[in-house]
């Protein structure tokens, strides 16, 4: 696993070197140890899943990667460098985009405006020229609009572009949230239970979108998912967590046959 060149997946995709690495991460909330000494890496071009029962610490791990939580111990390495403690907005500006387990959208804004906010990290024009709608700001805005329209087409949400997000059904909100994250053209995309609460058909759509994103844009994806079937279908490697500890790490097949993992999952209904 430690080779720098990466590996070739079962379906023949070339996976690159390590993009993000968590080293001996521990996270405590007061007396509660949410994550205990966990290490794993995410490679360039990979779909990496984190699974585990409720309360295992999966979301906490994603929150650490995206800068929402600061680990009590351990290091985060990104693009070959050790990352100093960072605020979420700084992490976002480094090309890390994410969605949330409980959808976090701008409910009062339209779908289009929501997705436009995903471009904030790509806007550099000065305040004055922005306010005046001058040259650079206008060019930027146009370029950003184009990118956003591309994402909208990609996720097949053209018909709701102008709809206020608050009016959308749950499944579509999840998709808009994905669109906003994609609009940032992230180096790594973090998805916290992108299929939670969806029906079978919606899950299939979402799985397809996730795979297409990875395929077409080569985006590295780390995702949390409950549905074992889905995880096994779409991910290249899986980290399994239970009670804050890592109990398995490997390809879906390896993980599926891991006795610790089987035990952990027998205790939980699925």
């Amino acid at each position, binding site marked *: 696993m430690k080779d720098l060149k990466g590996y070739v997946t079962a379906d023949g995709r070339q996976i690159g070197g390590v993009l993000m690495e968590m080293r001996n991460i521990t996270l405590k909330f007061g007396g509660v140890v949410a994550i205990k000494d966990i290490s794993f890496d995410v490679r360039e071009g990979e779909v990496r899943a984190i699974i585990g029962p409720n309360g295992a610490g999966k979301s906490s791990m994603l929150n650490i990667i995206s800068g929402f939580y600061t680990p009590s111990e351990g290091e985060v390495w990104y693009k070959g460098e050790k990352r100093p403690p960072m605020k979420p*907005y700084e992490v976002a500006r480094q090309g890390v985009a994410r969605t949330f387990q409980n959808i976090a959208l*701008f409910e009062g804004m339209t779908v289009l405006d929501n997705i436009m*906010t995903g471009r904030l*990290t790509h806007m550099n024009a000065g305040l004055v020229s922005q306010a005046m709608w001058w040259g650079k700001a206008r060019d930027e805005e146009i370029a950003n609009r184009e990118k956003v329209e591309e994402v909208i087409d990609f996720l097949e949400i053209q018909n709701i572009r102008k709809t206020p997000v608050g009016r959308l059904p749950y499944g579509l909100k999840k998709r808009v949230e994905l669109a906003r994250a994609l609009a940032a053209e992230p180096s790594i995309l973090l998805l916290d239970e992108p299929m939670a609460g969806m029906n079978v058909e919606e899950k299939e759509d979402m799985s397809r979108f996730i795979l297409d994103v990875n395929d077409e844009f080569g985006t590295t994806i780390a995702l949390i998912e409950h549905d074992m079937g889905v995880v096994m279908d779409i991910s290249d490697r899986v980290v399994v967590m239970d009670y804050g500890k890592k109990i398995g790490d490997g390809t879906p097949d390896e993980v599926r046959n891991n006795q610790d993992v089987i035990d952990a999952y027998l205790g939980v209904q699925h």
Partner: protein
Amino acid sequence: MLNDIFVAPFVDMFAAPDFLMQVLWEGLVSGILYALIALGFVLIYRSSRIFNFAQGIMVVFAALTLVGLHAMGVPAWICILLTLGVMFVLAVVIERVVLRPLVGQPDIILFMATIGITLFLIGLGEIIFGGENKVMITEELGIPTGSVLLEPFGGLLILEQKDITAVIVAALLVVGLLIFLNKTRMGRAIRALGDDHQAALSVGISLQTIWVLVWFIAGIIALVTGIAWGARAGVSFALEVIAYKALPVLMLGGLESITGAIIGGLMIGMLEKLFEIYWGQPLLGGNTETWFAFVLALIVLLFRPQGLFGERIIERV
């Protein structure tokens, strides 16, 4: 009695439409300032859930700084720039010293912190500028002080030029803010932050930058209202009351609605003036402007508890 309440005032309005226009104009002048102040509240509330009790004293502080600098011999227009600079520094200091350490605390703590800011600014203002009343440097700023006479319906309408200036400047500021909020990256970020903190952070919005920005905008608003109100009423700590006039506006328009702040401000400005002239003075001995807006807001809330614009679905600019 019924006649006095339901008939006579309207007869008066129709009998002297020029006077009615005069009343509405004066209401508009106050109303647009209320709207501006309410906008300051809304921007801060939306981006930090803080009800900014200090808005009123910021008006006083901005006006005092402006007048104080001028008294030191600084040219009027430089005073404006310097005062803007002071308001910016104030925004930075408030973010650093008050907001940042208190982030994540309950709303009520943050509210109390703004009371602290208020008391601090009162003290600071008195130490630096003294407590006595001052005169706004209206003419020095190039604000015309004459009147424009119009003759609508064969009657007479007197528009004071400084009021016209106030309305134009305030309107420009409101429109500018709307464009800023809707068209620029920072503006979008402010709106986004108001809707969902986590999501805003995840798309790369810096809380600190936005907070400094909204407090600075509140400072700019404070300066503009301070000049406009100060030109009418003089510069003293009593200027603070204009901020309290924004409270019923917020009750009507909602703490989060930018549209609500603007429409609510204009409505209250004009209605309180109408009420004072046509009902208050003849029937209640006048001086109704101090309480009318609150009563109006309470009555509206009785029938529409969510306020006039309180539906979340409504496009909140």
